[in-house]
């Protein structure tokens, strides 16, 4: 899969063979159009990328009217990433997209601040569960909840959204970070801080997926700094049912094809029929070894 925000709505990808994709996850979509943040919106950090785009998107009405009919003609499923400032925003987007041809599922971005109290939904298991529950009641579509890593216990949030009716979780969203331009003595981003993605966060993401896969019964979709087939295999071996590629899409538009083919080659070379046959070995810590 290709991760939200790294593939637009699937139309700009002139270089990508969409048949290599298991699914496209769209740009975060809100009830009304959003202009996004003032520049500067992006920067580069060691082996990573920093962004604060500000959810620039054309709004759900445009997505439902203009994009969904085209997606309905594609073989690759399109999952709409949903964002908002309040539970009602998420519910409004979910309702509008429910039962429309061309929409294969929803992924909730719960890293958005809740305007009611300023706290991100994804930081608190109860808030995250309330949001998931409300959206669950508004749609029949498969529901993925994208977890933020900026928490003390990601498993607690994962368990809460599972209990609230999520069909899967995707992990992880970006880490909060920043960079400062020492020449101008000010933060690089206009919003000072933003989300860090890319290879820099891969080990952190992998560990979160490892924990979640052990604790949850619903599928975990692994995301975070994957650039090669070997990276993807690490997530699959950690227990992910699928993976999303993010930042690498900006750099190597054909990365999904390369990763897809590389996984197939690995399975073939090691005598595994398919992904489900991949054994997962959890290391045992022996108290008295």
């Amino acid at each position, binding site marked *: 899969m290709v991760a939200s925000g790294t593939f637009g709505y699937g139309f700009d990808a002139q270089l990508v063979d969409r048949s290599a994709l298991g699914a496209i996850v769209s740009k975060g979509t809100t009830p009304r159009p959003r202009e996004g943040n003032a520049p500067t919106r*992006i920067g580069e950090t060691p082996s990573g990328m920093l*962004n604060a785009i500000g959810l620039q998107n054309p709004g759900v009405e445009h997505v439902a009217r203009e994009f969904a009919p085209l997606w309905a003609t594609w073989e690759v499923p399109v999952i709409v990433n949903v964002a908002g400032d309040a539970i009602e925003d998420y519910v409004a987007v979910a309702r509008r997209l429910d039962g429309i041809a061309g929409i294969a599922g929803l992924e909730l971005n719960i890293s958005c601040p809740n305007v009611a109290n300023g706290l991100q939904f994804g930081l608190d298991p109860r808030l995250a569960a309330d949001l998931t529950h409300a959206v669950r009641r508004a749609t029949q579509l498969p529901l993925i909840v994208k977890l933020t890593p900026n928490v003390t216990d990601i498993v607690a949030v994962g368990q809460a959204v599972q209990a609230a009716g999520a069909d899967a979780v995707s992990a992880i969203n970006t880490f909060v970070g920043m960079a400062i331009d020492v020449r101008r003595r000010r933060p690089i981003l206009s919003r000072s801080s933003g989300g860090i993605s890319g290879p820099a966060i891969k080990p952190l993401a992998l560990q979160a997926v490892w924990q979640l896969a052990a604790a949850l019964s619903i599928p975990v979709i692994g995301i975070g700094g994957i650039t090669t087939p070997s990276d993807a295999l690490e997530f699959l071996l950690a227990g992910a049912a699928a993976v999303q590629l993010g930042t690498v899409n900006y750099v190597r538009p*054909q990365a999904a094809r390369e990763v897809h083919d590389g996984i197939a080659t690995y399975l073939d070379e090691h005598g595994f029929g398919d992904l489900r046959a991949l054994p997962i070995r959890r290391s045992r810590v022996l108290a008295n070894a």
Partner: protein
Amino acid sequence: MTVALAPAVVVERSSPMRGATELVLRHPPSAGSVLPGQFFQIAVGAPHTILRRPYSAAWADPVSGRIGFIFNVVGAGSAWLANRHEGHELDLLGPLGRGFDLDGERPAIVVAGGLGVAVFPGVVQALVAHSRRVTVLLGARTAAQLLPADRFVGAQVQTATDDGTAGYRGSVVDLLKGVTSNDLFACGPTPMLQTLMRKAREVELPLSSIQVALETPMGCGLGTCLGCAAPRIAGGYLLTCQDGPCVRADRIDWDRMTDAFHG
């Protein structure tokens, strides 16, 4: 527009002015398809970098299949690029974005500040080939940082330097005189462009007569990451990579335009 991902071979490397590197690559598909003002996303192999670096083509020759890029070292990525030698292969994504609209009859004036000059050799060549009368106004901090005038064959070149070591002492924008019936092509630091827009308003030159090659931070170059936003006069933002980099100056809200950060 077709966008190619393709290896290009470095065939020549030189320093056309102090601090700058010019790489000449052999890549017939790019040299044959790039329009003046378009850019490429070049992959860099510097440790711990991940994003491609956007560079306007300085010029291209479809006959020899060669394409030139002129740049300064401003960070790890450009330092890596400046260290490529003959025979090295580079991974190019492009040509991308919109080039300059070169149609028209009116005399053309090119205004280049600092490294903004890097986009213009091919532009001037094309304007001259269209039989346009071309004046090139070059500005730099000091004489050694000026791209030599012989890179603009067929154009009249005037220079300005901050320290007065060549040409007029002061801003390149001061060289503009009696320009109400010209087409302008500009590229340079944001403060220079803002000065240019104020000057244009003073002399009642419509901003729609000025085309600017925008420079903003850039992520993907493909319209996907939405990182290269430039403030639009109509509100909201346009994307440098898709709506630009070459745009009419009356589309931009120059008061909200920030200076590009170079990493």
